[in-house]
């Protein structure tokens, strides 16, 4: 009797473990992640999005801390403008690959996914942050357009002293 039970248990366990070899499901092979250092566009976007989220959360944090009186006004403004700057540059970068690969690449789904995630949490606060940052971005873009080398016309950033293209002194 007991031997029978043992046999049944052993057989059941063996079948259960072997099952995946016979049941080749849809998730087989193709979506098994590639183990290499090269980042796909999707991965890059994902990590950029992570950075964006991180910056948003940092901004949310300092907003909350400021409203709790944990930060002085100067500190708050300094930190906030720093993170806004970072966020703006991350958003800039995120726009670029999308333009190259067109709106409906493999990234399209990812974007959908991300935005659906994002819809669920912290919507109201993020909306405010988003507005602030886009205002900030358009302002800095405008400034950037004005920052053109007087000699060769290439763009430069505000902290440069010499033009990176032609080497002319900037003012």
């Amino acid at each position, binding site marked *: 009797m*007991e*031997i029978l*039970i*043992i046999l049944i*248990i*052993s057989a059941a*366990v063996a079948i*259960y*473990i*072997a*099952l*995946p*070899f016979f049941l*080749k499901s849809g*998730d*087989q*092979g193709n*979506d*098994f*992640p590639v*183990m290499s250092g090269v980042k796909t566009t999707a991965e890059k976007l994902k*990590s950029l*999005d*992570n*950075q*964006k*989220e*991180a*910056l948003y*959360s*940092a901004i949310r*944090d*300092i907003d*909350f*801390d400021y*409203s*709790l*009186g*944990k*930060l*002085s006004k*100067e*500190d708050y403004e300094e*930190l906030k403008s*720093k*993170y806004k700057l*970072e966020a703006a540059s991350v958003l800039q970068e995120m726009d670029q690959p999308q333009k190259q690969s067109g709106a409906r690449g493999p990234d399209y789904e990812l974007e959908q996914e991300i935005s659906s*995630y*994002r*819809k*669920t*949490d*912290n919507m109201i606060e993020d909306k405010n942050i988003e507005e602030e940052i886009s205002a900030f971005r358009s302002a800095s873009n405008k400034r950037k357009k004005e920052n053109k080398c007087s000699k060769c016309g290439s763009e430069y950033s505000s902290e440069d002293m010499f033009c990176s293209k032609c080497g002319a002194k900037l003012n």
Partner: protein
Amino acid sequence: MTETGSISIFLAFIISIYVLVASIYGARTRKWDFVRSAENGAIAVFVLLVIATIALVHSLINLDFSLKYVALNTSTDLATIYRITSLWAGQAGSLLLWCLVLSVYTAIVVLQSRNKDRQLMPYVLATLATVSIFFIFVIAFIESPFEKLPFIPKEGRGLNPILQNAYMAIHPLTLYVGYVGVTVPFAFGMGALLSGKLGDEWIRYSRKWALVAWTFLGIGLLLGARWAYLELGWGGYWAWDPVENAAFMPWLAATAFIHSVMIQEKRGMLKKWNMSLIILTFFLAIFGTFITRSGIISSVHSFAQSDIGPLFLGFIAFILLFSFGMFLYRINDLETENSFESILSRESAFIFNNLLFLGAAFAVFLGTIFPILSEAVTGSKILVGSPYFNRVNVPIALVLIFLMGVGPLISWRKASFKNLVKNFLIPILLGILTVIVLLALGMKDVKALIAFALCAFVTGTVFTEFFRGTRVRMKRGENFLMAFMRLVSRNKRRYGGYIVHIGIVLIVIGVTASSVFVTEKQATLNKGESMELRGYTLRFDGLEQYTTDAKNATVANLTLFEDGREIDTITPEKNIYKYEGNREINQETEVALRSTYKDDLYIILSGFNEDGSATIRAMINPMVNWIWIGGLVLLLGAVITIWPSGTKSRQEAFVRYTVSEKDTTVKAS
């Protein structure tokens, strides 16, 4: 049943090896079906170990004395509930339980994340399988719970009476779930090292599982303390015994880990530190199991001893070498993304918290192994006792409590001096006020004064946090209750953590009061005589004896008066267990405890004489109840912190949101 049990353990051993091989092979060659098969294997191991455990419990309940384990741990006079709990009274049974708990964790991990993080998971599984292999090997080949005796005795030896206690029934189980639980965050760390995916995922999972293990360890320690308090009869709850230290050390390291993990999540810093911490925590958990199981360090209550010591040492050495080897191999991938901005910031408060927790763990570790160490170095065994542990840990604990108050109100990244003054003014005033009031009440003990002042300070900061957060939300038009509930539910980690801190404060208050202000008195009383004890009077009304199936009990009847008023009757007992088996302990002192929030009256019948007189030992332990209440608050806070968000979609969103937090690439200026 017993054959089924031992075969199940053997099968579980074989399959665990298969799980290890198949998951690594599958991950390296990207053959997904192998990984799937390994995952099924992990679940099969769980099922097999459940079968084995059921088989052993079945034998224990039915007192199958042909099994050595049953004969050594039960007897015919044992109640059914204690027949079941004797599953963890002895060596082999405890180890079976260890394996079972680990397989439960493994199965949960597999079921929860088999479709996520496919790079990471196979290696996590492989790590869990490796640990399983070791422990299942021990119960399959060395300490088998299904070992047969060459004969069938008529009666078993029975369970030690001091283990026949409701707390003893759940305390080891809780502690085990905690000990074994540490394996899971460690496995995620190792998974990250092995797969090279050292980004967001492992730390997220590790944090969650470390919290689970931390909670169980903490609650297990408190249950053990309560058991010792009620059952051992010396009036205390903590003696710095090696077995207690064994669970305390991983708890300390895990506390450090769950704090420093936050910095990695928020700021991308301390990656190497966190990885080392989780390896260390796991080492301490295994080392703790080793201490309790091998009996290498003599302890008054290491209940199980055997010769599996060298095997354990080998395993510990392997774990340390392998994990730190992998750590060094991947060290370049663990570069920090940020640097510290200011010493007056939450990050640095956490750093100091970590160093102190590790310092405490180191001190406890050193004290615990000191006899071995000194014998190896000087040739003579030298002990350090409770005074050592108290002397080292009390100052560390006081600074930690201070940091516990500072942490919540100090800001991330950078805090200005002006704001520090503004934020900490009320809590500091509260602390000073406490000192003044206590001095006025005549308290003179400096350490106690500091401890109580710090407790008031921490309570002040935590309430300030709750109050201000609620007020900010109320300004957005929510009513008080809604604002409060949303505040907590929107940031469960933060506010659950604060509730845990309040629990710790309550425990600290209880420990301080009950260790500094004990009143103790012993007297031999004839019938009708009384003894006085700080406002209480105890009148001895004579001895009484009764007999049950299991024991002969002698009861001392005492009437308690407070300020002349009769308030209670108290009946400490001394029991002689009838069973004349071969267990060494047949005598048990039953403590009579009258417990209020103010103090515990702890009364022991330490002896009685033929002339009807009795020797009564009475103690007043102030505020011990606060420790247990603190434990409940701690549990509440921990549950809030761990509690997942409501619906699935929300959970996903929440998880993603957390992931992103750690990838901060903000460069510090």
